[in-house]
C-alpha cells in the first residue's frame, strides 16, 4: 500500500465535488440501504463525510472507508433527490477507483474483471459452458417466473431463486445485423448488453423485431463487450477503459442516429458515466466516448419520442391482464425516463396498467451489491415484492434486466406467481412480431 499522503493527494481531485454537500441529510429519505439499516455510514451524506475525512487525514487506514463505500447500490436515488446537486454516483465511482488503485483489486475481482469480462470472447465462451452445466446443480422452482434454485446448498447461490443462463446466448442466435432503414426512419446501433445476451435473449429478439416492424435500420456488430459498469463499480478503471475502447471501435464502424439499448443500466452507464469516468485515458478517446454517449437512448424512449407507437386491436379474449411497472433507478433517476415505458405497456390493449406503491423505489439489485450484501439486497427486494403484490398485478414489467433478475428472485422466494417481463416483450406480442 502506498502512503496515506499519496492517497490524500489523489483524493484532492474530488475536493471541489465533495464540498458541494451541505450535510442537509435529505438523502436519508430515499436511500434504500439506509431505510434498512438506519446507519449514517450507509447513506450518501455519511459516505461523503467519510471521503472528506480521508482528505482531512482523519484515518490511519482507508480500509474502513473503502468497505463502507462499497455498501451502496449506486442507484442514484440520493443524487436525484439532492438539493445541492452533489454528483454522488460520479464521486463514489471515482473514489472507488482511487481506493482500489491504492489498495489493489482483490484477487477474486481481478480474476473476474481483468481475466474474463475485459476479454469479451473468453467471457462468452465461459458463460456458454456455464449454461451447459447449470442444470446439473439447480432445479426449477417457479414455472411462471422461470426461476431455479440450488439442488444442494452452495455458498455462491445460497437460497437465491435465480433466472438461469439461457441455453443459447443471443449472440449465437443472431451474431450480427446491418439493415437499412425505411424512408424517414432512423438507423440505430443496437447495444445488446451482457444480461440480455446471456439471460434474456428473448428480449433482444423482441427488440429487433419491434425495430424491424417500425422500419428502423439496425446496426448490431458482433463481438460486443460489456458496457463497463461492473468494472467501474469495482473501481477497476483499467478494465473499464479496455471495454469502452473495444465497444467504440466496433460501433464506430458505421454511421447511425442513436445508440439504443433495452437495458436501463447499460444506457445510463454509456450516457452518464462514459463521459466522466475516463480521466486516465487520452483526450481523443474521451471525445469519442462523449460523442457516442450523447447518442445513447433507452429503447422505450426511442419508440415513444422518436418513432411513435402503434396501438393494435386486442388479440386475446377476456379481461385485460393487470400489469404493473417497476421504475429502474437507472432509467428514472439517472435518465428521467418514466413515462415512455408506461406508454409502451399501454400500447398493448391485452394488458391494463396498474401502478404499485413506491414504483420508483430501488429493487435492491445493484449488481455486485447483490453478491456482496445478499441479505440487505434481499430485504430491499422483499419490500419491492410486497408492493408488486399490493398492486394485484399478474405481470410486473420493468425496463432493466438486472431489476428483472432481482424481481424474479424476490417473487419466486415468496412463492408468487407473477411473471416478470420487459415492456418490449409485451409490445412485441401486441404487434404479433414476436419470434
Amino acid at each position: 500500500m502506498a502512503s496515506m499522503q499519496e492517497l490524500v493527494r489523489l483524493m484532492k481531485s474530488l475536493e471541489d465535488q465533495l464540498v458541494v454537500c451541505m450535510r442537509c441529510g435529505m438523502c436519508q429519505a430515499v436511500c434504500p440501504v439506509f431505510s434498512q439499516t438506519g446507519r449514517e455510514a450507509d447513506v450518501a451524506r455519511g459516505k461523503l463525510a467519510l471521503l472528506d475525512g480521508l482528505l482531512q487525514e482523519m484515518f490511519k487506514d482507508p480500509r474502513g472507508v473503502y468497505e463502507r463505500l462499497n455498501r451502496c447500490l449506486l442507484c442514484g436515488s440520493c443524487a436525484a433527490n439532492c438539493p445541492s446537486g452533489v454528483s454522488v454516483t460520479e464521486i463514489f465511482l471515482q473514489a472507488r477507483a482511487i481506493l482500489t488503485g491504492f489498495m489493489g483489486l482483490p484477487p477474486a475481482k481481478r480474476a473476474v474483471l481483468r481475466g474474463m469480462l475485459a476479454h469479451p470472447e473468453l467471457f462468452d465462451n465461459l458463460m456458454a459452458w456455464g449454461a451447459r452445466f447449470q442444470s446439473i446443480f439447480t432445479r426449477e422452482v417457479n414455472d411462471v417466473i422461470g426461476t431455479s434454485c440450488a439442488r444442494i446448498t452452495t455458498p455462491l447461490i445460497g437460497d437465491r431463486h435465480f433466472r438461469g443462463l439461457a441455453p443459447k446466448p443471443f449472440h449465437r442466435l443472431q451474431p450480427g445485423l446491418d439493415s437499412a432503414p425505411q424512408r424517414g426512419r432512423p438507423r440505430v446501433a443496437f447495444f445488446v448488453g451482457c444480461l440480455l445476451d446471456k439471460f434474456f435473449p428473448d428480449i433482444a429478439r423482441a427488440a429487433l423485431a419491434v425495430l424491424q416492424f417500425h422500419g428502423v435500420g439496425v446496426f448490431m456488430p458482433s463481438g460486443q463487450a460489456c458496457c463497463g459498469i461492473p468494472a467501474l463499480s469495482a473501481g477497476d478503471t483499467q478494465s473499464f477503459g479496455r471495454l469502452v475502447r473495444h465497444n467504440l471501435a466496433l460501433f464506430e464502424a458505421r454511421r447511425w442516429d442513436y445508440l439504443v439499448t433495452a437495458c436501463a443500466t447499460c444506457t445510463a452507464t454509456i450516457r452518464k458515466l462514459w463521459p466522466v469516468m475516463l480521466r486516465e485515458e487520452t483526450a481523443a478517446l474521451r471525445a469519442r466516448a462523449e460523442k457516442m454517449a450523447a447518442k445513447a437512448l433507452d429503447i422505450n424512449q426511442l419508440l415513444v419520442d422518436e418513432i411513435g407507437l402503434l396501438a393494435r386491436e386486442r388479440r386475446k379474449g377476456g379481461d385485460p391482464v393487470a400489469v404493473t411497472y417497476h421504475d429502474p433507478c437507472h432509467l428514472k433517476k439517472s435518465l428521467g425516463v418514466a413515462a415512455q415505458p408506461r406508454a409502451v405497456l399501454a400500447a398493448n390493449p391485452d394488458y391494463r396498467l396498474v401502478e404499485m406503491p413506491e414504483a420508483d423505489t430501488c429493487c435492491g439489485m445493484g449488481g455486485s451489491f447483490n453478491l456482496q450484501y445478499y441479505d440487505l439486497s434481499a430485504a430491499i427486494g422483499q419490500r419491492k415484492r410486497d408492493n408488486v403484490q399490493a398492486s394485484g398485478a399478474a405481470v410486473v414489467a420493468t425496463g432493466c434486466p438486472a431489476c428483472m433478475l432481482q424481481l424474479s428472485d424476490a417473487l419466486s422466494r415468496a412463492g408468487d406467481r407473477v411473471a416478470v417481463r420487459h415492456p418490449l416483450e409485451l409490445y412485441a406480442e401486441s404487434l404479433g412480431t414476436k419470434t
Partner: protein
Amino acid sequence: MIRKSLLKEFQIIVGAENVFSEDTDRLAYSYDAAVLEAVMPALVVRPTTGEALGQVVRLCNQNRIPLTVRGAGTNLSGGTIPIADGVVVVTNALNRIEEINEEDMYAVVQPGVVTAKLAAAVEAKGLFYPPDPGSQAVSTLGGNVAENAGGLRGLKYGVTRDYVMGLQFFDVDGEPIKTGSRTVKCATGYNLTGLMVGSEGTLGVFNKITLKLIPLPQDRKSMVAVFDEMAKASEAVAAVIASHVVPATLEIMDNFTIRAVEDHSHAGLPKEAAALLLIEVDGHPAQVQDDAAKVEAICRSKGAADIRVAQSAAERDKVWAARRTALSALAKLRPTLVLEDATVPRSQIPAMVRAIQSISARYGIAIGTFGHAGDGNLHPTILTDRRDKAQWQKVEAAIADIFDRALALGGTLSGEHGTGIAKSCFLEKETSPATILYSKRVKAALDPHNILNPGKIIGG
C-alpha cells in the same frame, strides 16, 4: 476513549450490532446540517427499545459520559454535534407510531418517527398535524420537539410547541418522567412539557411524545403576488397581518432567490420581479373565498403588479413546489450555504428586509432572502465558500449584524432552528445575564454532572 468494560455494558443494553465504535462509523455522527466544525464522538449507540434508551442514559450518567441525542441530524444550529469523548444516542430505530386516536384527536409516537410519515398517517384518517419544517421528509419528531421546530404554516397553525400535549422522558438517571396528558386541558404539576420543548437534549431524553391533531381544512386556495419593489411586498405582508386575515402560509422571495429558483426549476416565475409573495388561505370554502378576496385587495392596494390565483390543484402544487426548491436552488450556486432564521415582530418585516439588503451591500456578500414572512421569520441565506478565510470572516460579521438588527427591532435570534452551539454566545444579548444564570441553575439542578448535551443553548 471508552473503556472496554463499559463498551461491553453498552453492547449488553442495546445489542452489539447497535454499538458503533470504529472510527469510520463514529465520523459519520460528527456533524449535523449546521455549518460548524465536526466533532468525533467516542461511541455511537442505537437503542431499539425505550427501555434500552433509559438504561443508556443511566449508564452515561453513572460514568460521567456526555450524551448527545440525535434523530436525523438535520439540526441547523449544531445541537446534534457531539462532545469529543461523548456518546451519540441515535433514535431512528425508535420509530413506531404507537397510537393515532381519531376520537380524541391525538397521536402517541416514539421520538424517532419521521415527521412526514406521521403527517401522512394522520392525513389518511382525515386529521392534520400542521408543523412542517423544511426537513420534514427526514426529520424526527423527537428532534422537532427538542428544537421547537417551525415550518411554513407557523402564522396560522403555530409551531411544534403548540402540538405537544404530553411527554414521557428520561431524566439524567434514566428514570421515567411523565408530564402533560391526553386531555385537551391539564392543570396538574409544573408545566414540564413547556420546559422540555426546545430544550435541545440538555434536560432529559424523550421516550414518548403525545401530539395534538386537528381536523384537516376542507378547502384551500393559493396565489402568487408579484411586486416591483421588495419594500412594497414586505409592506403588503404587514398589511395582511394588520387586517387580521390569517393565511395558512405567507411566504416571501426576493429577486435573487426568484432567479435562482427559476433557473433551477423553470416553474414559470417572473424573473424580473423584485419580490414575490406566495400565499395560501385555507378553511371552510366560504371563508377561503372571503379571505382570498381580502388578501388580493390588500396586495393590489400595496402596489402588486400582478396577482395569479392557482386555478387547479396542479397549479397550486406548482406554486409550493417552486417555494420548496428555494433552498436547493440557492444551495447550487456556491459551495457553502448558511441559512439564518432571525425573526422579528411582523410589523417590522419591511425594516428587517431593508436591514438585510444593506448588510449584504456593506459586506459585499450574496444574501438571498426568502421565508415565512407572515410569521416574521425570514431566512436570509448567505452564499459563500467556507474555504475562503477572508470572506468567511465577513460572513461571520454579517451574521452578527443580522442578529443585532433583529434584536433591535424587538425580535429573536432564532425563529425555529434553535440556539445550539451556533447562537449560544449571542443568547445573553437577547435575554439578560440573570436569564442565563437562571437557566444554568435549572440545568445544574437537573443534570448535576452536566452530561446531557453539554455546551448547547447556555454554553459551556
